[in-house]
């Protein structure tokens, strides 16, 4: 993975950005955290939040003009949080002298002239950095402008407590001392001090300080601007700007570097307030006294708190690992960088459904699918992809690209194809009879011949990050298309459309849904109301979704939308989630299945089967157009399972060859009957063992005699290792008929 790209991905995730309140505060007081502490009744911790950000926390708690409150997102749903009242409550119930951390003493002298909020703040911050600070107050008292405010506004105790820091930090305070009034004489003080800071309005003349650094045209001389008069918190901020600039000046560092996010700035953090219930602010029973503890707790509980997590809210996968994309991207990158040790994120990487919903809901359009695919490709390229992760899916794809399934033919009696039907692997697996019906229909409604291509588009390999296998599948599909004279393809598979659209743009393709003429078919009345589930692979292909809806309306279905268009979720098959993390895939399907009690209709065979597996009644749109002859309830049709999917594909090819082209392919010689009870089949399914693997194991055992016997039971144990998996099959019987009782497998080789 490219490091720069990783950084770009990380910066796209805004979850760690400061909330609007903190970024509106020039001192970046974390009001969200302060509210959380207050909500819990831990006012001491709440006060610590304030004390961590400002040098005079008690004073600020009382006098702050709270620009945070004006930006509070709670205002979209009720009143903004009364952050200032919460700060006062924290001071009242948890206020204390701040803990002062002092760095090593530096033998440098600094003179701060003026002792209002910015001068005092600068003095405290510089003293904490280890400088010797002298604070000049031309009048008789520090913070003179705050002294007369009265206890109701600012308790004198607060000033006393905060000012105790000056003594603790050994700041020398000089009152009533005359300083020269002319600029030249003032500048001569530079001989006594290494740097000077003049608070705004502290002296009869004004130095002009640069707004970003407060540096004047005289080296080592810094001066405040007019914030003092406008806002107490900006006065404190000005003191902190001066302290940073003086520290940098004395260390010979750049005054301007990396100061972009100092002071207030617009927050990038997105907070969705749409679904929040409006809540009014808690009113204090005694406004003069301010909040009681209980009132403060109630008010703090109105804080959402602001966070994005838009993607995590809609995705079982992103929820599963209890974090958010910025951290996932870092984990994934770190996973790739491990040379020796355990790659803990492998399973996480292989569990994403690649459905793209996160990108759609992300305010910054971060695509986790892009991140995950890059990671999987890297793992495959470097040989670090766990061999078991996608083994069955890739073997199944190998079957779909083998002679057992692939076919490319012109319509019988035609030497060319105006269009060609590409049903896709999963429809051919799940309901091969629909493939036959659709192909018949297309032949009846299309002039110029309808070719047929049975092939795999390679989506499973792409999802697995296996570029070589994906390229092979694309090449084979392209060859079939060229063999038929490059016709436009009509497909029933959403993943095929997506793959062709993204990776084989030279092949024209359309969804089947706009090529069905219901007037000719005259299907029976469909169920009145059905909820439409769009497969995730057509998320950005509105015309495919619209085509399916038009057909449904024509069928007389009253459509229930499961979500806002474009926000469909995965069924758990996408991205091979079902193979790498079956438990998570179950939850993904369950979440979608639980969206509505109405029966679902979908136009992806895999989605339908996944719902069926979860016990959710669901039909494929073709179930409505070409209902089963026996009148069976299509919504109750069971998921066929891995083994029967392959069998379905192989049978479809054989039947089509026989019925349409009059060719009888030599059937695979099945030397014996295998009886497998449904509960044993379910176990095989869970263990991802195909019936074909079982058959070959038994066949191998019977042919070679390599099997184990448990005397007295009549049961045999066959073992077979065709490549990198050993299969064990417990079976009984003989004379061409066997019963399978159990099967398991392992990848370790034992000798």
């Amino acid at each position, binding site marked *: 993975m490219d490091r720069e790209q990783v950084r770009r991905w990380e910066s796209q995730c805004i979850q760690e950005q400061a909330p609007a309140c903190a970024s509106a505060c020039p001192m970046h007081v974390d009001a969200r955290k302060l509210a959380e502490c207050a909500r819990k009744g831990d006012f001491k911790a709440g006060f610590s939040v304030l004390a961590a950000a400002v040098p005079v926390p008690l004073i600020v708690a009382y006098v702050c003009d709270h620009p945070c409150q004006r930006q509070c997102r709670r205002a979209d749903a009720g009143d903004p949080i009364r952050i200032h009242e919460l700060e006062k409550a924290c001071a009242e119930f948890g206020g204390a002298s701040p803990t002062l951390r002092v760095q090593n003493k530096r033998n440098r002298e600094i003179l701060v002239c003026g002792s209002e909020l910015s001068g005092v703040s600068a003095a405290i911050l510089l003293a904490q950095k280890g400088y010797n600070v002298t604070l000049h107050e031309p009048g008789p008292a520090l913070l003179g402008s705050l002294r007369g405010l009265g206890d109701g506004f600012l308790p004198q105790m607060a000033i006393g407590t905060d000012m105790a820091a000056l003594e603790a930090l050994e700041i020398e305070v000089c009152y009533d001392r005359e300083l020269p009034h002319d600029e030249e004489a003032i500048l001569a003080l530079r001989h006594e001090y290494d740097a000077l800071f003049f608070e705004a309005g502290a002296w009869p003349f004004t130095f002009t300080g640069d707004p970003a650094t407060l540096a004047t045209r005289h080296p080592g001389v810094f001066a405040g601007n007019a914030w003092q008069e406008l806002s107490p918190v900006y006065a404190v901020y000005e003191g902190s700007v001066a302290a940073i600039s003086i520290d940098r000046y004395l260390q010979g560092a750049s005054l301007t570097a990396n100061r972009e996010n100092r002071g207030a700035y617009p927050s990038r953090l997105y907070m969705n307030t749409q679904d929040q219930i409006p809540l009014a602010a808690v009113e204090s029973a005694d406004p003069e006294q301010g909040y009681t503890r209980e009132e403060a707790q109630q008010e703090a509980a109105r804080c959402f708190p602001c966070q994005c997590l838009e993607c995590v809210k809609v995705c079982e996968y992103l929820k599963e690992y209890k974090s958010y994309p910025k951290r996932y991207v870092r984990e994934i990158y770190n996973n790739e960088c491990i040379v020796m*040790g*355990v*790659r*803990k994120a*492998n*399973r996480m990487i292989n569990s994403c459904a690649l459905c793209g919903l996160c990108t759609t809901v992300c305010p910054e359009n971060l695509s986790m699918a892009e991140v995950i695919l890059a990671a999987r490709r890297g793992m495959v390229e470097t040989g670090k992809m*766990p*061999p*078991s*992760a996608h083994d069955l899916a890739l073997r199944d794809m190998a079957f779909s690209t083998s002679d057992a399934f692939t076919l490319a033919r012109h319509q019988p009696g035609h030497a060319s194809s105006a269009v060609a039907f590409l049903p896709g692997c999963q429809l051919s697996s799940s309901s091969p009879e629909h493939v036959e019906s659709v192909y018949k229909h297309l032949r009846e409604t299309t002039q110029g011949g309808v070719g047929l291509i049975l092939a795999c588009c390679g989506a499973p390999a792409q999802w697995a990050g296996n570029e070589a296998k994906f390229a092979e599948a694309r090449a084979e599909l392209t060859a079939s298309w060229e063999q038929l004279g490059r016709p436009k393809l009509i497909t029933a598979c959403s993943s095929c459309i997506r793959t062709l659209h993204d990776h084989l743009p030279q092949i024209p393709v359309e969804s089947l849904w706009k090529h069905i003429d219901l007037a000719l078919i005259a299907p029976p009345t469909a169920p009145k109301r059905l909820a439409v589930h769009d497969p995730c692979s057509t998320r950005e292909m509105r015309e495919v979704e619209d085509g399916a809806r038009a057909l449904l309306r024509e069928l007389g279905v009253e459509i229930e939308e499961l979500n806002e268009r474009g926000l469909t979720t995965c069924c758990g098959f996408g991205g091979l989630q079902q193979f790498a993390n079956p438990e998570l895939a179950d939850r993904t399907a369950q979440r979608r299945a639980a969206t509505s009690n109405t029966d679902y209709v979908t136009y992806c065979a895999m989605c339908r089967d996944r719902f069926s597996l979860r016990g959710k009644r669901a039909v494929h749109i073709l179930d409505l157009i070409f209902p089963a002859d026996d009148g069976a309830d299509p919504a109750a049709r069971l998921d066929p399972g891995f083994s029967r999917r392959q069998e379905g594909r192989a049978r479809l090819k054989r039947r089509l060859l026989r019925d349409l082209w009059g060719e009888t392919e030599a059937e695979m010689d099945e030397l014996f009957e295998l009886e497998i009870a449904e509960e044993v089949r379910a176990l095989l399914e869970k*263990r991802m063992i195909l019936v074909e693997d079982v058959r070959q194991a038994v066949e191998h*055992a019977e042919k*070679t*005699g*390599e*099997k*184990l*016997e*448990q*005397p007295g*039971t009549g*049961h*045999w*144990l066959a*073992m077979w290792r065709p490549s990198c998996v*050993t299969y*064990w099959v*417990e079976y009984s019987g003989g004379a061409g008929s066997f019963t399978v*009782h*159990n099967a*398991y*497998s*392992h*990848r*370790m*080789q*034992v*000798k």
Partner: protein
Amino acid sequence: MAEEAELMCGKCKQPLVKAQVVASYLGAEFPIELLRCPGCGVVHVPESLATGKMFQVEQALEDK
């Protein structure tokens, strides 16, 4: 099939006996005592081992 029961090799027609064997995967090797045919050397891996400890070790090795 009971896992502790006596097993006979179908080919060599003799009972399997406990033996030290080596289980290997992705370059890592582990000595382990399992039932083996003294004749052809076929080794029995019981279901509980294959779906339990052995599976866990395989998963751990795949993440190395």
